[in-house]
Structures are given as structure tokens and as C-alpha cells.
């Protein structure tokens, strides 16, 4: 069970989770709508009795290998070079999703699909066609154990990918003629062939009805606070199986599972300010999810904080001073501000940077305080007794996953990278990861920030008060929980007089950025909290509590909505439900 994590109310459990990459090449009008249709309906499906167990992966792998052999041997157009590399990747999804609002089931869906991505490269490792429409062709393949039916789709997708590669290479070469690149890097890194057959994942065949009742029950707790405008609970149980075959001889398959349950709600303060809270629990199997009592308690607590937020005073216009982030809030900060800068993405064609982002020229420079280390480790499945979700053995380019120290004593020592080299990093460190229909890109797995000098929570709190006193401030600030985009959800004043806390609302950060991480971070805790992201490419971020010397918090400039024009319908029970 993981710590409280906030998430947007509507976004977390959407059906449409797969981003479609454009650049199919000239394709049938059927294909894009079909994929869109299926992506949207992947999780908008059967509430009927559980479907029969999925076919085994053997037939799918065999079909991919057979078509790969044929393509390698025969695929050649006049006037276009034969491919030097071909890759097939199939992502098989099977998911069950349900949502409840105000105590009643609103939706319930079960669906599965197999998404195929074909990349054909022409040219060579130094310069190839991986550009524009040459970056891959997407399609679907049958769920059935039917070699011919599967090969038929793979055949057509490979054909499109090869033709797209032909055009893409010309387009790329033409574009490059207009540019001068200082230190060219190869387009594609060499890698050794790997055989890696791991067990596939299957969705639990348990009866999910108790879970449906649970999300109804927890969303029904709104009765204790009829002023709530929105209160919903949702679950998503899913397995993802990966299949990978390339022309270099790599054959791989593996599977993973994710079970999540969440509750989210919103209310408005008397002045119209919108207040939102949410909480999500994640586990690798059903048994890891919270028991009913625990989940209801968490829900009740969340409701309580919404009430408190409604009554809380609005933050002052500006605060400048020390701020302590709980480990929960700190993991959000690391996710938003540090994680993206560690990705060694290739810059746009012709650009001369090493990579993109604020740390692209900071290789070997100090980017964080010298007591901070950051490591990315795809081998871990738990940390301090809590589950991690970023683990894998082989990335989505067939390269063995590696543990990568990224920041040592505050210095940036590496980037996460796939098979697309960047300056000074010619070889993949196994971090080329992709969503079902997207192309691989450098991506975190389990990103862990640690302090070389961890301080206990009580000490951090004392230090917060000390720093506030030094500035003659009546209080310091404590961030307990953040929402997406570093939205402040639970923020407290901590009074220097006696250390008591006061909840405030309506605040936003003024200057929380990479610079303040480098210069204002003065202490860190020991116990980590984990924030996991399970949509698209799963990864986890762990961080202890973080104490900053001076940050700015200000009153939100956002306009407020009016309150509902009329009262909600009276509840049919005369007494509000008692919430334990």
C-alpha cells in the first residue's frame, strides 16, 4: 500500500489512455479510426461474466518471428535500400475498470486489445530513416491464436513502415543539408541480441463484485457532507504484456499487473474557491489493495480534509520563508522538477544541444545540493516496504535495464537513455520505454532521491521553526500534499510560538523551480514516500521530506466560480450517514 497521492479528479481513470502517434504514412482511412475506436473502447467493455483466459503468447511470438524472417529475407523495393533493421513490438492490454458516483455505480467495463508497432529502418546506424513518418507504424493485431490472421496484419504494417522509411530518409537528408551540426552523433546505437522469455501476466479471475460494492460504498460517504459537489470512487485492474522481436535476433516477452483504487471529490468554499482532493492506492495484485475498512477510513479522512479546507482561511498575499515538504509532497516535486531533466532525449534534427531541458548543458555540473543523490533502478520492486511500479528486465527496445546513478553528491553524472544516442552517451542504458502505440523515449523506471545526511522528521520540523524565527516570521509553512502540476492541496502554517498547525487554502508557488532546488534545499529526511504513475509508461518516484530555506508562496490569482445557483437535492435519508 502506498502513501496518499493526489491526482486530478477526472483525469486518472479515463478510458482513453493511449496516445496515438501521427505519422502512419499513407494509410487506409480505416486504421486510424479503428485504433481510436478501440483505444477509446479498450476499457469500455464487457461487464459480462469473466472472459476466457487469454491465449498464450507462444503463437503471437511465433507469428512475429515468422513474418520477421520473411521480411528480412525478401522485403525490398526497387530504388530503395533494403532495411538494415526491423522491429515488431506488441503490447497486449487487458483491463477492468469501474466508477461510482454518490454511492451508485456509474460505469463498468472490461476490454482487451493487442497493439502492434512496426519500425523499419533503412540507411545504417550512423544515419537512418527514423524521422517523421519513419518513426513507426501502428496497428492492431488479432487477440486470437491464429498465426495467419496475425501475420496478415503484421505484413501490411511492415509494408507501410518500409515505404514510410523510404520517404523519411530522403526528407531527413534534405533537411540536414540546410543545417550544420557541430558534433554529429549516430542515429541508432548498437546493441547485443537478447533472448528473454518471462511469464506473462493474467488479470485476476476473482469475482470483482466486492470491489464494485466498495467503490459504491466509499463514494456514498458523501452523505456526511451534502455540500460536496462531486464525489466519486473508481478502480482499474489491468495487465500489460509486452512482446518484442527484432531483426538483430532479440526475442522477448514479459508481463506486469497494476491494481488501483481511488476516491476523489470537490467542494467550493463560501467565496466560491474550488477545493479538490483525491487519494489513490496501488498494488501489484488484488491482495495488495487496502482492505475495505482501511479504504473507507481513508475516504472518511479525505472528506474531513475537504470540510476543513472549506472552513480554512485564505493564505496571505505573499509569503517568503522556509517551507518543509512532507515526503509525499516531495515525491511530487521530484517527479515534476527533477525527473524530466534526467531524460537524455535527442534534440530536434540539426539542433546542437546535448539533449533537451534545463539540465541539457549541466553534465558533470552541480545541479542539486551536495548531500543529494539520485539513482534510477529498474530492478527494484519495493522500497521501504512499499511497492514500486517501474521495474522491468528489458526495455521497449530490447535492451537490458540498468541501474543508473544520475546525481552523485549533487553533480549530474548521467542521463537516462535508449538506443538513440546523444553527445557523450553512445550506448543505451536500457531506458528506452514506450506506451502501447508510441515510440520509445528515455524514461524513468524507479527514480530514487536520497540524502547522504538524512534527518528525522521531528528535527526537520524544529529546523523549520528555527529558520522562520531567524526571519522574524510568525510561522513557517508545511506542505503535506500536492496535486498535479504542483498544485497546493494541503498547506499548513506552523507557528513558531508553539508549533501548532493551521490549514490554509488558495495558495500557489511563486518560484519553485530547478534553481531553488539547487540553491534553497537545506535538509532532507530519511523515510521515503513513493509516487507512482501508472498511465502510459509506468514509473515510480521516491523521495524523503525536503526542507527549503526560502521559497515564495502567494495567493492564487485564479478567478473563482460562483456557487451552484440552487441547493443540491435533499437526501432521501433524513439523517446524514454517520462516518466513523
Amino acid at each position, binding site marked *: 500500500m502506498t502513501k496518499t497521492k493526489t491526482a486530478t479528479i477526472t483525469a486518472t481513470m479515463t478510458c482513453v489512455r493511449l496516445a496515438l502517434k501521427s505519422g502512419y504514412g499513407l494509410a487506409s482511412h480505416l486504421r486510424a479510426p479503428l485504433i481510436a475506436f478501440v483505444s477509446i473502447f479498450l476499457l469500455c467493455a464487457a461487464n459480462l461474466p469473466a472472459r476466457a483466459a487469454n491465449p498464450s503468447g507462444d503463437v503471437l511470438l511465433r507469428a512475429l518471428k515468422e513474418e520477421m524472417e520473411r521480411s528480412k529475407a525478401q522485403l525490398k523495393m526497387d530504388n530503395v535500400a533494403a532495411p538494415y533493421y526491423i522491429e515488431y513490438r506488441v503490447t497486449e492490454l487487458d483491463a477492468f475498470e469501474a466508477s461510482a458516483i454518490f454511492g451508485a455505480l456509474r460505469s463498468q467495463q472490461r476490454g482487451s486489445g493487442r497493439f502492434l508497432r512496426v519500425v523499419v529502418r533503412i540507411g545504417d546506424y550512423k544515419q537512418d530513416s527514423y524521422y517523421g513518418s519513419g518513426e513507426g507504424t501502428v496497428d492492431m493485431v488479432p487477440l*486470437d491464436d491464429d498465426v495467419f*490472421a496475425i501475420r496478415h496484419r503484421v505484413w*501490411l504494417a511492415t509494408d507501410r513502415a518500409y515505404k514510410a522509411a523510404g520517404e523519411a530518409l530522403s526528407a531527413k537528408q534534405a533537411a540536414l543539408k540546410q543545417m550544420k551540426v557541430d558534433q554529429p552523433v549516430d542515429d541508432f546505437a548498437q546493441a547485443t541480441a537478447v533472448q528473454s522469455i518471462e511469464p506473462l501476466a493474467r488479470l485476476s479471475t476473482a469475482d470483482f463484485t466486492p470491489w464494485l460494492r466498495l467503490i459504491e460504498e466509499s463514494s456514498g460517504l458523501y452523505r456526511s457532507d451534502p455540500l460536496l459537489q462531486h464525489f466519486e470512487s473508481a478502480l482499474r485492474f489491468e495487465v500489460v504484456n509486452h512482446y518484442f522481436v527484432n531483426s538483430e535476433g532479440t526475442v522477448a516477452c514479459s508481463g506486469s499487473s497494476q491494481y488501483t483504487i481511488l476516491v476523489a471529490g470537490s467542494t467550493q468554499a463560501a467565496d466560491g474557491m474550488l477545493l479538490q482532493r483525491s487519494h489513490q492506492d496501488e498494488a501489484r495484485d488484488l491482495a495488495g489493495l487496502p482492505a475495505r475498512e482501511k479504504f473507507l477510513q481513508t475516504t472518511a479522512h479525505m472528506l474531513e480534509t475537504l470540510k476543513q479546507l472549506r472552513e480554512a482561511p485564505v493564505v496571505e498575499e505573499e509569503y517568503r520563508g522556509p517551507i518543509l515538504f512532507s515526503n509525499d509532497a516531495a515525491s511530487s516535486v521530484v517527479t515534476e522538477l527533477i525527473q524530466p531533466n534526467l531524460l537524455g532525449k535527442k534534440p530536434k534534427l540539426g539542433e546542437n544541444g546535448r539533449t533537451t531541458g534545463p539540465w541539457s548543458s549541466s553534465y558533470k555540473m552541480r545541479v542539486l545540493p551536495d548531500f543529494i543523490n539520485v539513482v534510477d533502478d529498474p530492478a527494484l520492486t519495493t522500497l521501504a516496504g512499499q511497492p514500486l511500479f517501474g521495474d522491468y528486465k528489458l526495455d521497449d527496445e530490447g535492451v537490458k535495464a540498468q541501474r543508473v546513478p544520475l546525481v552523485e553528491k549533487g553533480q549530474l553524472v548521467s542521463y537516462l537513455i535508449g538506443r538513440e544516442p546523444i553527445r557523450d552517451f553512445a550506448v543505451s542504458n536500457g531506458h528506452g520505454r514506450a506506451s502501447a502505440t508510441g515510440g520509445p523515449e528515455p524514461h524513468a523506471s524507479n527514480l530514487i532521491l536520497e540524502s547522504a545526511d538524512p534527518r528525522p522528521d521531528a528535527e526537520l520540523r524544529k529546523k523549520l521553526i528555527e529558520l522562520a524565527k531567524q526571519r522574524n516570521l510568525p510561522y513557517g509553512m508545511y506542505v503535506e500534499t500536492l496535486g498535479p502540476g504542483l498544485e497546493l492541496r494541503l498547506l499548513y502554517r506552523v507557528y513558531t510560538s508553539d508549533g501548532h498547525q493551521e490549514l490554509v487554502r488558495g495558495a500557489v508557488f511563486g518560484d519553485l523551480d530547478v534553481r531553488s532546488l539547487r540553491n534553497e534545499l537545506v535538509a532532507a529526511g530519511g523515510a521515503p514516500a513513493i509516487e507512482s504513475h501508472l498511465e502510459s509508461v509506468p514509473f515510480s518516484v521516491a523521495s524523503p521530506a525536503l526542507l527549503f530555506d526560502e521559497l515564495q508562496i502567494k495567493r492564487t490569482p485564479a478567478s473563482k466560480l460562483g456557487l451552484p445557483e*440552487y441547493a443540491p*437535492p435533499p*437526501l432521501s435519508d433524513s439523517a446524514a450517514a454517520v462516518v466513523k
Partner: protein
Amino acid sequence: MNSRKAVLRLRFLVLFLPVILLTLILLTQSAPAHARTSDAKNAKAKKDQKSSSAAAAAGPGEAQLLAIFEKELHRGQTELSKLDPAPYFVSYNITDSDSLAVIGTQGGILTSTHDRERVADVSMRIGKPDLDNTHERDRNSGITSGALPLENDSDAIARTLWHLTYEEYRKASKAYTNVKTKTAVRAKDEDESPDFSVEKPSSYIDTAAPPAMPDQKAWEDLARRYSAAFRRYQIQESLVYIYGGNDRSYLITTEGTKIVTTDAIFRVMIEGELLADDGMRLERAETFQYSDPSKLPAQAEVDAAVKKIADDLNALRAAPLAEPFSGPALLSGRAAAVFFHEVLGHRVEGQRQKGREEGQTFTKKVNEKILPDFLSVTDDPTLRTLGGTELSGYYRYDDEGMPAERVEVVKDGVLKNFLMGRMPVKNFGSSNGHGRAQAGKMPVGRQGNLIVTSSNTVPDAQLRARFIADIKKQGKPYGLYFEDIEGGFTLTTRDLPQAFQVLPVMVWRVYADGRPDELVRGVDIVGTPLTTLTQIEATGDTTSVFNGICGAESGSVPVSAAAPMILFSDMEVQKRKYGDTRPPILPPPPGADQPVAVKNGANEKGGAQ
């Protein structure tokens, strides 16, 4: 039935082009189409199932559900009437949909989904019927949609409806302020008819039980077997899409309307595609559609349809490219039906007669001759079947709760009426039951079943002889016969030419010198409506039906069109634009003769009878 069918999912199979007010009809063939044949295989009319044992459709649970909706509707109206501005009209239109969709290709299932959902459309009008928030461009302020709980929990449903209602109030009152400002500031419109017609409320509860939803596993096997039929042929892309949907809709309004209807639609769409050597993409599709799932086609019928698709595509691949041409043209009944849908049907939709952006081709031509005097056109959604074929555009009440009406659009060549929803236009102040929309959109006047009849018919064979005579008379080397078309679109806005384009698939050169007909490819029919319609010379005597889905501003709605074969003294065609992708480099993989993995029956060889 009401006209709303939850065709949201089918939207993805219709090509939507980005130009405003562009419409496309994905034309599908109902098999077989000719009205004259009383073919036992055609869908029989759905019998009125008034048996009292049909409890599923209208039981106590449903009465309770209606009560919840009505209570919250009236509570909202009462509360909002205390505000300024206050709504003068509110409606809730709630659809419970149960749908099944399976897609197969080459004997394997790509996806199989069963979906149940409940969606509410809250519609609100603020101001007065003469001028309200839905005026002109602000029309979409009249509707807000959202998902409702599936459980009949009164608190949860009422609270969700409450939320949607005040959201809609905010949208509508903001739009109303805009509308008042714009009306004060801008020049007056030519047409100052009201925004909302005055009508009597309706009440109707459909007690017929919907057909049972088919077994998902059985349909998966069906999709495997149907799609495996393509294994015999060298067709590149192919898909079989099987869709079934049962919708129960509840419409209640503050005017007292209460309509509860059921819609059931079950269809099989089979599509094949080939790339010609020069890169032209060739497509053919066949559709079977019924309101009763037990009528879905037998394997033999599907095999025959797949064979026709494959044969046609191969013939097209070998056919020469057509040249731009104008001269005599003969349209098959189905082709003519689509033609009328695009060229005439869309231009007699009520809302197109109003508004500064509309071309208003026919607005001022009421009581004038727009067609030859032997032609009449009606749009009749009350018709369930025509000559034994089920009509896709059948409904009893439209999406504004108005009873469907048979409308005489053109009588003996003279334009008489427009297809009206509750948005009046000059001289047409009332709805005639044609206000239709997809869930989530504001209804506008749309077609239902567009039927073209002729009082001057010639047997089809004789019509062809006349066609050849015309070709000779005009001194043309050939005329064109349009056997089948895949769709079309129409531009009706003022800032684009008043054109239409109908997309033929099977087109033949018919030679005056007795040579056999020659298939050609790459042709689009073009023209301007006012002229083209007057060039109709004669018609055949057999009516063909076309069932399809029409997309326009108020979304996708099921429609049909019916017409006899039509001879045009002059028709213009242009070359179709096409891509330059080469056909696949490698042949298909081996193994087409492998047995298809059918789960619930014995293994069959791919494509076996």
C-alpha cells in the same frame, strides 16, 4: 421509436471532413435492395410487440426512474425560475444504452466490447421563444451532457442531474447575454422568425420489449467466420464490424412532454480495400442491417457478399482511369437515392433556410418548380419498411419529442415544404417532427426516410435503351452508368461554392456502338444542385433503398433514401484525387488455408461454406 440512436461509436467509421456544414453519408447497402422483390431474406417489419409479458421495457423500476428524473427536472425549474434571467424551458433526455461491438479481420478478432452506459442531455432555453440563448451561433449553449449512474439510486441520479443542470444554466445565461448584445448591435437578419416554435406536449411510452442482446462469444465466432471469407481472395485490408445496440430513451420537458422509446439496431459491415498499381485506393463495402439480431446473415450470404467485394475490387484494379466528362448519365436506384440525399435532402433541412452563413439554395423557391414535374419527394420517418426492406430512418418521435410526420417536400416538381424541427424559419413556424440529433447535440431539422417517386416511369431495360439513344443524339462516344457509390458530401455554406460531390465506386462507360460496358475508376460526380436537378429526363420503375448514417451539425443519425433508376440528360464528372502509395511489395503471408480458430464450434477451413 424515437429518432435518437446511440450511434456515437459508428461515428468513427464515417469520414468526417473539417469544413463547417460539410456532410457525408456513409452509404451502405441493405441487402438486397430492390423494393419489388419480396425476398424472404429481407428483414421483416418489426411487429408491434404489445404483449403484456414484455415487462422488461416498462416495469416498476422504470416508473421509479422516470419519477426521479421528473422530480429533479421540476425542482430545478422551480429554483431557477427565482433567478434573473430564468429559463422558460428545460428538458432532460436520458439514454440507457447497451451495445456490443466485435471487429474481425482475416479470421481473427481485433476487439470485442460490451458497453452499458447512461447519458443525460440537459437542454435549457433562457429568454423567450422569440429570442433565446440558442439564437444562431449560440445554438450549442442549449445543451449540456454527462454520464449518469447506472444504478437507479435516486440521490445519486438527482445529484448528478443537479450538477449538469446548473452547469447548463451558466452556459445558457451567458449565451443569452451575448445574444441580446449581438442583436442590439448588429444588423437585422433577413429572417426574423422565432428561435423556438410553440407546440403541444406529447406523451408516449413504448411498451415493446427490446430484442435480447446476443451472446458476445457467439458474435466473436461470427466475426471470425465472416472475416475468414476474405482469406480466399487477394484483398489487402479487410474488416468485418458487427454492432448491436439497444437504447432506451427518456425525454421529459417542462412543457409536459414525456416520451419513452426503444431503439434496436443490429448491423454487419463488411469492407475490403485494395491499392491499384498507380496508388489509387479502392474500397467496397456491404452492410446488413436489422432491428432483430436473429436476422443476421448466414455464412453463405456473407461469403457471397465477400466474393462480390473481391470481384469488384479486382475488376476496379484492372479498370482504366476515367476522364473528366459531361454527358448523359444513368444512376442506379441506390446511386440515385444517395444523390437525392446529398443534392436535395440536405438543402431542404429547416435550419439551412436561416442564418447568414447558409447558402439557402431553396429558401425562396417554395411553390416554385425545382424538379421535373413527374418527380415527387417525401420524407417519411413513420415508414418502417419499403418493399420488404427495413428503413434505417424510421422513428415515432423525434429528439424534441415531436411526433414524426410524413412531409411532402416536393410535389410534382414543386417545392412545398422543409424538414423542420422546433426551430422555425420564415413562413414555416412549426415542427414537422424532423428535429434530430445524436446524443449530446442540439437537434436540427434532419432527414429520415427520403423517398423519391416518379409518375413517368419506364421499365429499367427501356430506360437503358433511352440512355443509349441520348448518347447517340448528343454525339458523345459514351455515357456513364453509376451502379454503386460509397458516399458523398455537400457544401451548403455561403462562402463556399454551392456544390456537391457524390463518390461513385462502380462506374461503367456505356457505349453507343454496342460494345460491352466498360468499368472505369477514379470518378466523382460534381455539379450545382439548381442546375443538375433540372436535367433529370426520366426514371425507371423499381425503387431501391439505401440505408446509412448521415453526419452533420447535430451529429450522426441513421437515415435511408429510396429512389428509382434515374436518367440525366447531362451530368458532369471530375477525376478523383488519389494518393500514390504502391500496393504491398510482398505477397500475403502463407497459411490462408489454415483452419480458423473458432471457439464454439468445430474448426473450419478459412472461408468454408
